[in-house]
């Protein structure tokens, strides 16, 4: 596997792989995201307690899960970059950070807009909400730390260490609803043995999660390409690439 994977540490190969993958991801992201949203908003039955306000779940839960998923991916990239000195891994890390930050913001915002009609308040300083807010600050910290170094290799190392240290927040977010008393409800779908969501509601939710994941992946692929271009702008292969694209 390593032999197969190793060539993609080279930026040119990674860029070309992105170029090949991007259309597939864009198409599948568009289809699954639209399907998830339409199914959730139009066809899923309304909740017997929360009425139609529960439909926020189809954007809130995917964004909350994937805000943590994106953080894990970012931290793994940082780890690969630090341990094996792979420049491309740092580029992947910084391509992911703003996506994760936006998705975390969406999780917080939709949570607030759901909390207002159901809990009677936009925000409470309880464990789940506060730890998710800290996740947003960790993303912003990684982005600004990376931006503050002129030497991007140094920047990758510094931001990478911060990303890895921040992983400690992920189990805190996940278990916050069990460790502390909170307004936020417990996990519903990560109990795989017996999910406590009706299948009619669960299926559109799973598709929404897949859809948002693919949307994020497509944006990530494009952002990784941009980061590679930005760092390798004087390399002959980039010059040739642009000359070819502009010559057409």
């Amino acid at each position, binding site marked *: 596997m390593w032999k197969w994977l190793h060539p993609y540490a080279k930026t040119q190969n990674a860029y070309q792989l992105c170029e090949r993958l991007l259309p597939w991801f864009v198409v599948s992201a568009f289809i699954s995201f639209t399907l998830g949203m339409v199914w959730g*908003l139009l066809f899923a039955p309304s909740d017997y307690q929360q009425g139609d306000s529960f439909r926020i779940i189809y954007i809130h839960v995917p964004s909350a899960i994937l805000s943590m998923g994106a953080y894990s991916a970012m931290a793994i990239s940082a780890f690969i970059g630090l341990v094996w000195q792979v420049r491309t891994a740092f580029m992947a890390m910084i391509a992911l950070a703003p996506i994760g930050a936006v998705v975390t913001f969406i999780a917080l915002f939709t949570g607030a807009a759901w909390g207002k009609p159901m809990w009677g308040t936009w925000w409470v300083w309880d464990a789940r909400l506060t730890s998710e807010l800290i996740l947003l600050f960790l993303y912003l910290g990684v982005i600004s730390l990376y931006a503050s170094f002129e030497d991007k290799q140094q920047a990758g190392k510094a931001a990478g260490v911060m990303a890895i240290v921040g992983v400690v927040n992920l189990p805190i977010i996940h278990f916050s609803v069990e460790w502390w008393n909170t307004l936020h409800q417990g996990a519903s779908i990560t109990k795989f043995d017996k999910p406590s969501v009706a299948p009619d509601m669960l299926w559109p939710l799973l598709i929404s999660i897949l859809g948002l994941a693919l949307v994020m992946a497509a944006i990530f692929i494009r952002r990784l390409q941009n980061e590679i271009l930005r760092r390798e702008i004087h390399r002959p292969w980039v010059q040739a690439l642009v000359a070819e694209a502009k010559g057409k």
Partner: protein
Amino acid sequence: MQFESFSAFVDMGGYGFYVWLSFGVSLLALGILAFDAVRQKKVLFNAVEKEQARKIRIKAAKTSATSQVKSSYSETQASPRNEEMKQ
């Protein structure tokens, strides 16, 4: 289909404001992110193109300048020498 009319769909059982606020802001945020990713690539490509055009201009200016110098040099040098050579 869970809703009987379009207005019922918009109303979301009285929770329309919260539901559409959530979905609107989320789609807007993702849209900005996607749009920025697409735009950045164009910006970078244009920057590379500009740099290439600049290099070509510099090279062209240099070669024309050197050829001018060379030609003026050969003109000034050539004439007396040629005279000498003839003699």
